[in-house]
């Protein structure tokens, strides 16, 4: 049996390889490439068997590489044959958490700019065992609720920590859930959800916190410590007894005629500040009627979804469900304001640069005349460089272009440069805008140093920003309003896709121990030409600033 199988394989291989010749080379076991080593420790002791994986950052996207190493008995890992590049090294250990989440609160990882054939040492990870919270979710009859959402959220007041520490899971067929790898701290546990269910209506159970309270303020706080396991964190969910429907019509606000086949959606206000909108593909019928079922009491709004190429828009119509069905809502459409134009790429006719345009987007920021309200819209750039916004509010519009390596330098309307934004009236149709962009391919590669060659402070976050000197007053543009560059574990940074010019590079740091302001700052000027890579060193010096600026993320 085995031998005949083997024969069959070799036959196939022979036939195939004579038909198609793959120009494949098998990699020799070469010794070139960089080496990265370090230690993973738990309570100062080397942790064996932990995978450290390299993730490559390419043009803003991340992808894993085949570079993976396990720590040995002493907790030491060694990644070899690493080509130069911009990487992230991550200790991939689901049950462990970083001891100090300050430098990178989201993951047990560091960024690393790797040069050709270098040896990088002491890229260490200090981890600890996270906590466990487990329990069971049942209905009021004690039946297990299966695949019910369970979430834990930080009970701390620090909002950034609250976000990064949110975790969720689902119960199994016994109603049991188990969340592990939880960073030490205080948590609240909730089961169920107040969002709309993907089936359309309100979910069958109200969100309830342990121990069986609907008000988050009354939830019991669970203290998670290193390696702790808190069991029997059970939650009983109450059924939603009555649900109601909402009905109404979508009409043309100018003619009063019903609009058929208009897609609509519903927004639920989960809290006064948090809402969720769901469109399930439903469309209005021949008489413009819409309908939504299974809503429990609460605050909602209905909206008509204007397709991106339509010439109308409609404001959401809010409503409240109390103890009966809601009927007679009217959604009125109005003629939409549209703005269209084309992106003009200046200074290059490189096809690969042109290709970066499609897939990118144009962003419009509109501020009302009285400056009380600002809305941001985005529109995709089509392969011919054109873009179109529909349904904009009235106000003054400024624009930005979000496409890799491309920077908006001016906006033209009817051949006239618009330096301060374009006023847009309600229902106005503006076409023929020209957004002129430049392509930047210069780079600044730098390293941060502390005066007197002292080591960079541990537990500090570093930020680098670049600003082109002599830059004209500019439209709103995310890519040019001060660029930031990520600083790696060794104090290195790389800013790519820069237009030629002179930049002021500013570096500063924060530490957790010194929350009042930045403790180190450095500035440096650098001039780059087209396509050049310039290396610089920025020296940081102690500086105390009373008014601390908010760091950019």
């Amino acid at each position, binding site marked *: 049996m085995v031998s005949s199988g083997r024969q069959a394989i070799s036959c196939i291989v022979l036939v195939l390889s004579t038909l198609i010749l793959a120009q494949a*080379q098998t990699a020799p076991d070469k010794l070139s490439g960089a080496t990265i080593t370090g230690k993973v420790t738990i309570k100062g002791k080397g942790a064996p068997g932990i995978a450290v994986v390299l993730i490559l950052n390419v043009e803003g996207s991340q992808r894993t590489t085949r570079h993976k190493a396990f720590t040995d008995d002493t907790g030491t890992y060694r990644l070899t044959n690493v080509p130069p590049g911009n990487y992230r090294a991550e200790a991939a250990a689901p049950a462990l958490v970083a001891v100090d989440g300050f430098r990178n609160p989201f993951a047990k990882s560091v960024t690393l700019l790797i040069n050709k054939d270098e040896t990088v040492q002491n890229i260490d990870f200090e981890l600890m065992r996270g906590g466990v919270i487990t329990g069971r979710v049942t209905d009021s009859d004690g039946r297990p609720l299966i695949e019910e959402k369970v979430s834990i959220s930080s009970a701390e007041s620090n909002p950034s920590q609250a976000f990064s520490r949110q975790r969720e899971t689902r119960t*199994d067929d016994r109603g049991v859930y188990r969340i592990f790898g939880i960073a030490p701290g205080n948590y609240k546990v909730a089961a169920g959800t107040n969002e709309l269910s993907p089936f359309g209506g309100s979910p069958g159970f109200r969100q309830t916190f342990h121990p069986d309270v609907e008000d988050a303020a009354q939830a019991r706080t669970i203290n998670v410590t290193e390696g702790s396991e808190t069991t029997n964190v059970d939650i009983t969910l109450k059924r939603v007894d009555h649900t109601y429907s909402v009905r109404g019509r979508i009409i043309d606000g100018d003619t009063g005629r019903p609009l058929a086949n208009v897609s609509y959606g519903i927004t639920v206000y989960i809290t006064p500040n948090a809402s969720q909108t769901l469109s399930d593909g439903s469309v209005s019928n021949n008489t413009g009627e819409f309908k939504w079922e299974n809503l429990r009491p609460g605050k909602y709004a209905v909206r008509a979804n204007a397709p991106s190429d339509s010439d109308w828009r409609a404001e959401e119509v809010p409503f409240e469900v109390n103890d009966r069905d809601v009927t007679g809502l009217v959604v009125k459409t109005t003629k939409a304001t549209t703005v269209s134009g084309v992106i003009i790429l200046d200074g290059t006719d490189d096809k690969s640069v042109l*290709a970066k345009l499609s*897939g990118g987007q144009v962003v419009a920021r509109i501020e009302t005349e009285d400056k009380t309200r600002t809305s941001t819209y985005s529109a995709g750039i089509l392969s011919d460089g054109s873009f179109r916004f529909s349904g904009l509010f009235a106000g003054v519009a400024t624009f930005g272009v979000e496409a890799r390596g491309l920077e908006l330098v001016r906006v033209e309307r009817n051949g006239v440069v618009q330096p301060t934004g374009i006023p847009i009236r309600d229902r106005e149709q503006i076409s023929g805008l020209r957004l002129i962009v430049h392509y930047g391919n210069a780079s600044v590669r730098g390293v941060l140093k502390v005066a007197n060659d002292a080591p960079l402070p541990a537990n500090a976050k570093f930020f680098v920003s670049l600003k082109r000197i002599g830059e004209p007053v500019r439209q709103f543009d995310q890519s040019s309003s001060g660029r930031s560059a990520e600083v790696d574990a060794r104090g290195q940074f790389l800013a790519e896709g820069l237009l030629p010019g002179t930049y002021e590079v500013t570096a500063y740091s924060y530490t957790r121990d010194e929350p009042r302001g930045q403790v180190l700052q450095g500035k440096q000027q650098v001039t780059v030409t087209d396509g050049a890579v310039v290396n610089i060193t920025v020296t940081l010096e102690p500086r105390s600033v009373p008014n601390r600026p908010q760091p950019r993320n």
Partner: protein
Amino acid sequence: MLKSLIMILLTSLLTTAQTQRPGAEASKSGSITGKVVNERGEPLPNARVSVQAVGPVRSRASAITNRDGTFRVDGMEAVPYHINVSMPAYITEPSDTEEEKQYRVGDSVSFILIKGGVITGTVTNAAGNPVIGVHVSARMIRDSDDEELDGGFDRRVNTDDRGVYRIYGLPAGTYIVVAGSTDEYSEWGVNPFINDLPTYAPSSTRDTAAEISVRAGEETSNVDIRYRGEQGRTISGTVGGPAIAGGFTVVLTSVEISGSQSDTSKFEQPGSRQFAFTGLNEGDYYLTLRTDLTTNEASLSESKLVTVSGADVEGIELTAKPLGVVSGRVALEPSKARECQGKQPPPFKDISVSAWHRETEATKNQPQFIWELGAPVSADERGNFSLINLAPAQYHFAARFPARSWYLQSISLTPPAPAGAKTESKPIDTTRVWTTIKNGARLSGLTVTLAQGAASFRGQLVFDPAENRPVEWFAYLVPAEAEHANNSLRFYGGTVSPEGKIQLVNLAPGRYWVLVQPANDDALSAFPQFRNPDETETRVRLRRAAAELKTEIELKPCQDIGDFKIPVKSQ
């Protein structure tokens, strides 16, 4: 493959009579009520019931069963509905009919949900420590009738911090359990087990994996896995060619010893020129580069065969080349026959044109997915169509249309006139001559001609009651006129129903011989092929067999022939 071809032929030859239920007055609204119970008849609370109107009306509602297993949806328009009842960890009772049942307002309905099976166990490493956060899948390899499955039911979970996994809601059948996945990320960040080869329970490769029998409602525990954590091989390389800038997909096709193929696709973002597949077993793989299909016209590279043995494979270069395009139009030839007056032609947008590659000539040793890129297309309002993304090969063409009194007259291709020529080139009959399509070819001038005057034929096989007869039969109409002897469009065929009935439609008027054959191996190989340009011999054979029987029939324009008795003699 064979089955799907037969299906396509059948649907093109038989009218698809839509059963429309009459009398859907949308004036009144009402309720649908019902009850959901488990396999022991006990009420099942908390089951999700979703009610969706049949057809384009998107009217729908959902409910959750009460403590007593009952549910009620109100305010439903009086149209037919489909009802779907589900509950996690439970499975619906297998149904005998494929057709989804329809319900009406006022109905009181009941459903049974059965608790699915459970597989649970612990994953540990060689040192006996728990393997945490690894993906574990239960894959059904045989169903409850012991039928082998390819790509059957598959459910995946993660192990917890104790290495414990629990997979529930499994339909009855035989499963294998595997730990490890090539996913880049898991719930906790980067997947620690990326690039590993999968480990099958208890601690083996696929060929020696333990088979686990699962019955509904039962729990199989201690399906433990000793995780091997062996690094798989990597194939990597670079890509080039047009339209790569908008992102690209590399398809890795692994070839099993049985000849069956499985594809793994990886999309790379715009800007990238590199690809890598990790965690691979040693063996043979095809690599094919494909550009984004959403941009309408895609490009494709030649497929490269790579043998992974003893080392990673680097430096594979794939270059995309544009695929072929054949455009053309649908021409309509009305009939003057009195019987045909007032019969509507099919709307152009309902006419679908497809291209079929010559399997005998196409390089056998290449991924099969490339033939699916050139999907059937519909004509536009003016009858123009464009078949895109055709991989280099020889092709013939087919058309489908929903109009009973029209038939497919011809499919011809007018090649471009040579430079300086005064007259147009002569059209080529594509039903007789294969059309060669090369990379980047853009052929125009394909004309699909539909003529009015099609007849239809309903026949009944009459068996000698004494005879022991095969169950399945094919029936053909074979052209009796000598001039159509090798006109493949004048050959019609279909499968005979178990009651001995056959219906053929969209038939060109003319004289035919009726032929029935038991669906034996010979007939099965001939049946889906009888319109293939290469199958002159098949048509000659069918015509010779039909000529001997001499059951002749003449079809007049727009004639409907019903209840034609076809005596079946012993074979």
